[in-house]
């Protein structure tokens, strides 16, 4: 346990007290207490900046499950620190924003902040863990907290739908990652990311290595809403806007990017990694921006825009992998893609965060986010308008804002890699820059759309549910901080280059450093008249033309058949899944005890007989059998005849008594074999259960209490005969062959020394195998409660009477 562990777990620990604060101090907005946490953390993490700048990393270890190699190891390097600062920094702003966004009187703030703090811990854990299992744990916790936050207004049907969708898709990815972790750790023998990287050479050629790669990418793509898994993000917009700004644009959706960046050192040598990451990313960029234009909801546009921007960063990370395949060439040329990825990641957090907050302000003050109803708000909300303006211009890649710089670098990276003859790209390498440019053009179009439709044009106050006015200052401060960052970074990008970008890039591309290379980050606004500048001009002019002609071609979107849309496919899959499982459930679960018993015994017979056959266990030795006495023969005969007569018994009472006879006979066997504990237990159990049976049968409905002859069923007779045969075979087999020596000797030797006991059976129960007993009594207790609830709370009417 170190301070860093404390820092990661601080939010979730504080969240334990939040409901109390929300209840006890209803006059103070709970957000003010919560705000302390991210502010403290941001100052804590920024102290590491000088360290990571000089290439240091910080680790701390807390043993958790050492026997399985699972320790909570924190690892903070440039990449981790960048994310930690994003999480805590944006987190502070979002919490501040939420104080003014969420009404303390109307909303249940306690739950909101508990989920938010839970997410903060989860996200910090993801980016600061070195152990893959711990990483996975936090990864799933982000999915869960995201689920809870999307469903925050759970009384809305769309919220529940969106929450379920995001949960299903991201958890699917998480499970894929768990598979990837299992493969990777089996190959390398370690769960640590750094140790896996160290033993990379020995595992790279393995056939399963590629499968692990795909599984990890599946996790990253689902989390970062990459095509075709992007469909959950637009529906996640049902969450309160602070959540959308925080989880679904600035942090959680970037966990996928983090995963790709973090595992780049391990996987990037594979060409498949390069292909998958860059092509999925670039297509997502294109697809997201294309779909953003057809949205009418401000947050919908921003959601698709986020998808597209995530695709951009993803593709840059993929293109950056090319750096590892080049030895002779200038590394600087290839590292630029990775530099651009990290740079754009920061930029995107600033401008998209501010845009989401702006959308929230518009929603809060006008009551709608539909751009068809908005318009002309510029005079009423000048500050929000400025925020929107700067944010969108940066997103569209217009100088002098930070988005322009990273967009330029993106184009450079795309051009360089597609122009090279790496992986025989030239044949179809042209697709990459084309998709990049088309995507950027549409980005430009929807950027204009956001500002023009909201703040300019004709005012339509009659369509607005509220009279619009400027937001309170508290709601404006967080987006203002973000847009001032947009401007500052735009003007002085090199403030970041050595402090945040270079250490992060070094963490993504350690191979370059190991090979003696150096990573130089220098970002400048002006590169001279080159292809990138030319492309930017093309993007702007094409964007303007497309925007002007938008009414003419927007109807094209409706031409797309609904049946092929991914959302439709998802819904159909879900519906069909539910139908199929209902059908299977209805056929299998008949509600009759006898059919369940047939299943259970049928499977027991099949499984055990197959196992006996497969293990060739049909060999029976007779020599260990001791001599048989007359008592035993008599008892066996009693046992068999009573068991057989149960099946022919006509009255229930007779069968209960016969059942008791078998039980007492078995108890007598225990007496003969000198097992007093067992005999005692068996006797009492038999007594109590006969009493129970009588009680139950007395309570049974009168109709079925009639004496009737149960018709002979061949199938049931066969199953019961087979069960008898199986049990006999198992008993004989276990007697005749032993795969390992019995543990009985250990118990006999140690019962007095270790447990200070004299009765071995009881010592085993409470001490040696106490865990078993603990779970057995837990099951017993559950069964008791189950019977209680079943009888006390059963539905009256219908079945009974």
């Amino acid at each position: 346990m170190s301070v860093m562990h404390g820092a990661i777990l601080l939010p979730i620990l504080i969240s334990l007290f939040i409901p109390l604060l929300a209840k006890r101090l209803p006059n103070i907005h709970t957000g003010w207490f919560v705000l302390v946490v991210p502010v403290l953390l941001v100052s804590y993490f920024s102290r590491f900046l000088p360290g990571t700048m000089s290439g240091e990393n910080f680790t701390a270890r807390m043993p958790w499950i050492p026997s399985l190699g699972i320790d909570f190891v924190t690892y903070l390097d440039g990449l981790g620190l960048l994310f930690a600062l994003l999480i805590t920094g944006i987190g502070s702003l979002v919490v501040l924003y939420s104080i003014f966004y969420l009404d303390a009187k109307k909303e249940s703030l306690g739950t909101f902040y508990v989920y938010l703090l839970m997410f903060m811990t989860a996200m910090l854990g993801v980016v600061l863990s070195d152990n893959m299992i711990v990483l996975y744990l936090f990864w799933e916790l982000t999915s869960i907290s995201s689920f809870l936050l999307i469903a925050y207004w759970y009384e809305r049907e769309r919220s529940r739908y969106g929450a379920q969708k995001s949960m299903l898709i991201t958890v699917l990815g998480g499970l894929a990652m768990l598979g990837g972790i299992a493969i990777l750790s089996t190959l390398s023998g370690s769960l640590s990311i750094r140790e896996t990287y160290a033993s990379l050479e020995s595992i790279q050629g393995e056939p399963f290595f590629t499968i692990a790669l795909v599984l990890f990418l599946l996790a990253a793509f689902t989390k970062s809403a990459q095509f075709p898994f992007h469909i959950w993000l637009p529906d996640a917009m049902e969450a309160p806007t602070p959540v959308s700004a925080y989880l679904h644009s600035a942090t959680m959706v970037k966990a996928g990017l983090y995963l790709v960046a973090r595992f780049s050192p391990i996987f990037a040598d594979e060409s498949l990694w390069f292909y998958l990451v860059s092509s999925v990313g670039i297509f997502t960029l294109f697809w997201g921006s294309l779909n953003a234009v057809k949205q009418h909801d401000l947050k919908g546009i921003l959601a698709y825009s986020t998808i597209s921007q995530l695709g951009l960063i993803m593709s840059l990370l993929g293109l950056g992998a090319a750096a590892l395949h080049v030895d002779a060439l200038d590394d600087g040329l290839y590292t630029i893609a990775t530099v651009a990825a990290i740079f754009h990641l920061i930029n995107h957090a600033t401008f998209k965060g501010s845009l989401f907050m702006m959308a929230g302000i518009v929603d809060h003050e006008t009551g709608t986010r539909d751009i068809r109803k908005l318009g002309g708000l510029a005079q009423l909300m000048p500050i929000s308008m400025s925020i929107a303006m700067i944010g969108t211009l940066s997103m569209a890649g217009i100088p002098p804002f930070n988005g322009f710089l990273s967009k330029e670098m993106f184009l450079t990276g795309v051009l360089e890699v597609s122009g090279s003859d790496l992986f025989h790209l030239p044949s179809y390498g042209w697709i990459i820059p084309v998709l990049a440019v088309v995507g950027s053009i549409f980005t430009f179009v929807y950027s204009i759309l956001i500002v023009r439709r909201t703040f300019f044009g004709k005012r339509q106050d009659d369509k607005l549910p509220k009279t619009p006015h400027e937001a309170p200052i508290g709601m404006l401060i967080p987006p203002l901080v973000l847009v001032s960052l947009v401007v500052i970074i735009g003007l002085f990008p090199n403030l970041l280059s050595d402090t945040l970008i270079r250490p992060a890039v070094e963490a993504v591309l350690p191979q370059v450093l190991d090979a003696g290379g150096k990573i130089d980050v220098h970002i400048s606004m002006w590169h001279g008249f080159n292809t990138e500048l030319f492309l930017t001009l093309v993007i702007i002019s094409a964007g303007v033309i497309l925007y002007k002609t938008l009414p003419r071609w927007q109807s094209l979107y409706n031409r797309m058949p609904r049946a092929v849309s991914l959302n439709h496919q998802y819904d159909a899959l879900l519906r069909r899944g539910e139908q199929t499982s209902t059908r299977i459930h209805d056929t299998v679960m008949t509600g009759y005890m006898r059919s369940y018993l047939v299943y259970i015994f049928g499977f027991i017979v099949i499984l055990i007989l197959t196992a006996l056959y497969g293990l060739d266990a049909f060999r029976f030795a007779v020599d260990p059998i001791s001599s048989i006495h007359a008592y035993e023969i008599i008892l066996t005969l009693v046992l068999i005849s009573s068991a057989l007569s149960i099946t022919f018994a006509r009255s229930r009472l007779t069968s209960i008594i016969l059942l008791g006879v078998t039980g007492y006979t078995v108890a007598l066997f225990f007496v003969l074999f000198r097992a007093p504990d067992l005999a005692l237990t068996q006797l009492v159990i038999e007594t109590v259960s006969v009493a129970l049976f009588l009680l139950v049968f007395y309570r049974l409905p009168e109709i079925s209490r009639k004496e009737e002859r149960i018709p002979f069923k061949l199938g049931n007779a066969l199953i019961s005969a087979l069960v008898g045969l199986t049990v006999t075979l198992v008993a004989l087999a276990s007697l005749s062959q032993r795969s390992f020596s019995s543990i009985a000797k250990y118990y006999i030797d140690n019962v007095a020394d270790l447990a200070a006991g004299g009765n071995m059976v009881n010592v085993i129960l409470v001490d040696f195998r106490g865990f078993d007993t603990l779970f057995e009594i837990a099951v017993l207790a559950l069964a008791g409660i189950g019977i209680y609830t079943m009888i006390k709370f059963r539905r009256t009417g219908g079945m009974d009477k």
Partner: protein
Amino acid sequence: MKKQAKKHTNDVILESATSFITFIIFLFAVYLFFAGHYTPGGGFIGGLVTASALVLILLAYDIKTLRRILPFDYKWITALGMLIAVLTASGALLFNVPFFTHAHDYFNLPLFGKTSLHTAMLFDLGVYLVVVGVTMTIIQTIGESD
């Protein structure tokens, strides 16, 4: 049905025998519980024997009588037993030894003389309570349901 008429059958022998046999069974159960560590017995058997004593009362009289004699909610007894068992097992963690490590020592107690005290007995008490609680919960719920 002729339920009401059946209620007051004249089982004098059973009823009077029960009234003192129950105590003997109950004492025997206590003995079994404490003797368990060295001779046959233990929490599980002790619990069952106790439950059978209660069942005997139930058979000889009826549920209302049992209610009156022992006004317990057996669900709570089950829960209490679970709690004792889990706490005993996790108590070991406080002493920095693995979950479920038992401890024992010998003490000179008044009346008993030199006695071995063992944390396993606490765990066994949990088992005892769960067994009694569950058995009685089941029997009572089924018996009471109408």
